[in-house]
C-alpha cells in the first residue's frame, strides 16, 4: 500500500521527482503527509491548518482531481500533485496570490447597503473556504490566465445579491469574466462545499444584460454576418 507524491524543488536537479511513501492506514491524506514529515522525511512540504475542511489550505490533486487532503483517505496507488493552474513553489505548496487577486479585480465585496431579506439566497455561496479547487479545475485557465475564475465570480454573485449597488462589480466582471466561462460545470463538480459557480455565473450573465451589457460572443457573431447582403 503506497502513494506517490510529486516532489518539486527548483533548486534541485532534477527539479521534479515522484516519490513513493507507505500509507498510514485509517488516517486522512493530510495526516499521512504529517506522518511522512515527522517520521520519514522532514523535507516534504504541504499546507494544512484546520484538518476539518474549513480553512481551505490543504487542497491538492489526487489522480488528477482536486481534493482536500484533510477530507480524504488515500488509496493504494494514489498519485498526489500540487494544484493545477497555480505556480508551484515547493512540493505541494503553490502560490495562491494570483488566483486570490481575482477577488480584488472583480471587486467582490459589499457595495451600497445590505439587503438582509436576500441573505437566505446566498447561504451556500457564503460557505466558500477559498480552497481554489474550482479554479484548479477550470479549463478556461489553460487558455486565458487572466480569467477571473469561478470562486471570484460566485462571490460577486453573492455580493450583488445582498448589496444594493451591483454596478461596481458587474462592471468589473465583463472582461475576462462572465462571458469567458464555457459553462462546462467542472467547478461545480470540484467544490467541496456544494457551491455551484456555474449557476452563479449564468445568473450574473442575466444581471449583466439587465445592466445593459451584451454577450460579446453574440456581438462578434453579428459583426461576422452581413444582414444587408440579401437586400
Amino acid at each position, binding site marked *: 500500500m503506497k502513494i506517490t507524491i510529486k516532489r518539486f524543488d527548483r533548486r534541485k536537479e532534477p527539479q521534479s521527482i515522484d516519490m513513493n511513501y507507505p500509507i498510514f492506514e485509517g488516517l486522512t491524506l493530510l495526516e499521512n503527509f504529517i506522518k511522512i514529515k*515527522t517520521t520519514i522525511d522532514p523535507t516534504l512540504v504541504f499546507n494544512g491548518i484546520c484538518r476539518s475542511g474549513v480553512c481551505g489550505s490543504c487542497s491538492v490533486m489526487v489522480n488528477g482531481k482536486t481534493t482536500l487532503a484533510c477530507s480524504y483517505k488515500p488509496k493504494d496507488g494514489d498519485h498526489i500533485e500540487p494544484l493545477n493552474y497555480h505556480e508551484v513553489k515547493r512540493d505541494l505548496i503553490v502560490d495562491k496570490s494570483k488566483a486570490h487577486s481575482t477577488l480584488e479585480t472583480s471587486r467582490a465585496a459589499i457595495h451600497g447597503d445590505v439587503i438582509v431579506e436576500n441573505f437566505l439566497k446566498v447561504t451556500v455561496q457564503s460557505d466558500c473556504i477559498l480552497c481554489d479547487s474550482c479554479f484548479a479545475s477550470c479549463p478556461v485557465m489553460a487558455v486565458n490566465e487572466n480569467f477571473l475564475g469561478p470562486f471570484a465570480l460566485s462571490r460577486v454573485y453573492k455580493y450583488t445579491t445582498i448589496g444594493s449597488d451591483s454596478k461596481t462589480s458587474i462592471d468589473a466582471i465583463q472582461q475576462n469574466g462572465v462571458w469567458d466561462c464555457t459553462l462546462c460545470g467542472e467547478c461545480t463538480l470540484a467544490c467541496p462545499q456544494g457551491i455551484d459557480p456555474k449557476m452563479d455565473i449564468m445568473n450574473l450573465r442575466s444581471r449583466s444584460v439587465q445592466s445593459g451589457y451584451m454577450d460579446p460572443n453574440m456581438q462578434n457573431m453579428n459583426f461576422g454576418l452581413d444582414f444587408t447582403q440579401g437586400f
Partner: protein
Amino acid sequence: MTTDILIIGSGGAGLSAALRAKELGADVIVATKTLPTNANTCMAQGGFNASSSEDIQIHIDDTLRSSRGLGSSIMIDLMCKSSKTSLDWLINLGVPFSLDENGDFANRFMGGSTNKRTYYAEDYTGLKILQGLYDECLKNDIKFQTNRYLLNLIADEETKEVSGATFLDIGSGNIEEIRAKSVIVATGGYSGVYHGFTTNGFGSSGDGIAATVRAGGIASDLEFVQFHPTALKKSSILISEAARGEGGYLVNSDGIRFVDELLPRDEVSRAISNELNQNKEVFLDVRHLGSEKLSHLLPQELKLCKIHENIDMANDLIPIKSVAHYTMGGIEVDQKLQVSGLKGCFAVGECSNAHIHGANRLGGNSLLEIISMGLAAGENAVNYESKNVLKDNSQLSKDKAFINAIYSNFTNQINFYEKREFLGKILYHNAGVIRNDTGLKGVLAALRQMQREFTFMGISDKSKEFNTNLIDFIEFGNALEVAEMLLVGALHRNESRGSHFREDFPGLNDTFKSHSIFWKEDGVLCAQFKDVK
C-alpha cells in the same frame, strides 16, 4: 518596510483592527504566517453573543459569573455594551447571519447564558465572518504580507517602545523587519501546546505571547485553559455543543450516563476525564435524534465522523474525549488593550488577556471579543503617539544570527517531533482537565529538560525556501516557553477556579482571587500573583 500600524495575525481580531485603523486614515499592514483566511476563526461554528438593550446587564452578569472573580467589570461592560453594534457592523459587511421564520436574526442558547443571545450563520459562523472581513479588507486596500512568520517584536531596550517586528519570510527564507508607529499582536491562542489534544488548528502555539514576553512584556493567567467536553477521540475534532443541547447523551463503556450533559463545559469535561482515568471509554450518543434531524443540525459533524472515525452518527456511538479548546490567559493588557510592560504595542483576541473571560469563557463571547475589541484596538493604535519609529535596533541581526545557528550549529541529534508529541501528551494528562502538584512538577521538570536539550534538536531540511521543518521547530520553541508559564501558574495556584481544577485543592480559595503574571528578566522566567483591580 514601514507603515503606521503593523498588525500581526489575520484572524477576526487582526482584520477588525485593520479595518478600523484604515477607516481612521492610517496606513496598515497585516502580516500573517499563512494566508489571510487560514486563521482559527474560520473554525468557530456555534455563534456570536450580542445582547439587546434589556439583556445587556444580564449578559454582563453571566460573563462575570463565568469568570469566577477574575473578570474586570469595566472590560466586560465595554464588550457587552458594544455587542449589538459589533454584530450590526458584521451584518453591514454582508456576513449573512441566519434568519428565523419571521425574517429576524435567529439566536440560540449557549451553556451558562441566562438568555438567548448567540447569533449564528448556519454552522459556519466563524468562516463566514472571516471571509467577509477579508473581502472588506481587500475592498479597502489593506496590505497583506502573507507567509510571514513573526519572530520577535522590535522593542527599545530602555524605553520599551515597540516599533515593529521581525519576520521570517517563509517563501524566501529571508529574515526581514517591518517597522511601524505601533504594533497590534493578534496571533491567537495557545491550545496547540497540547499537541494532539486540541480542537484548534495546527500552529496555535502561542507565538505572539512568547514573542511579547521575550520583548519585555507581561503575560497573565496562562493556567486557565478551557477544555471542550466533546471532541472526536482519534482526531480531537470538535463536536459542537449543539449535540448535547439538542438532547445528545454521554455514556461510558458500560452504557451508563454518568453526568448531566447540560452542566457547564468544565464540569462535563471533568466528569469525562474521571471516566477515562478509570480506563473506561466515553461516547456521545445522538442516535435517538435520527438521521434527518442530525443532517440538519450537525451537517459538518456528520461528515467529519465519517471521515475521521469511520462511523455514522445516526447509527453508531461516537467515541470522544475532552481536549484543549480555548485559552483564557495571554498577553496582559490594560483597558486600552496596551501590552503591560511595553509601549506602542497592543494585543487583542485570543492571544490577549483583557480580563474578560477570567477563569472561564462563556460560549459565543470569543467571537464577540475579537470583533468588538478588535475594532477598539485598531482605534487605540491609531491614537497612540509614537516616539521613535526608526531608531536603530539590533533585533534583526540577532534573529538572523539565531536562524543561522539553527541551520549550522543545532545538532539535530534529538527528533523534536517526538518531543512535541510527548509534551502534548504529558501536558494533557497532567496539566489538563484535572491537575495535581506531583503531576505538574513532573511535567515542568520534563519541559525544562527539553529546554536544555533544545540545541541538540534542530532541522533536517536545510533549504531556505518554504522550510516548514524550520517553522515547526520555531513553533515548538515558542510552545515550550508558553507551556512553562502555563505550568508555573497551574502549580502555584493551589485552588480550583473555573477551568483550573486541582484535585489536591478542590475548593475555591480567595487568597488566589488574583491574576498570575509572568515576565522575563535576563531570559529567566519570573512569576507572581497580582491582585484583581
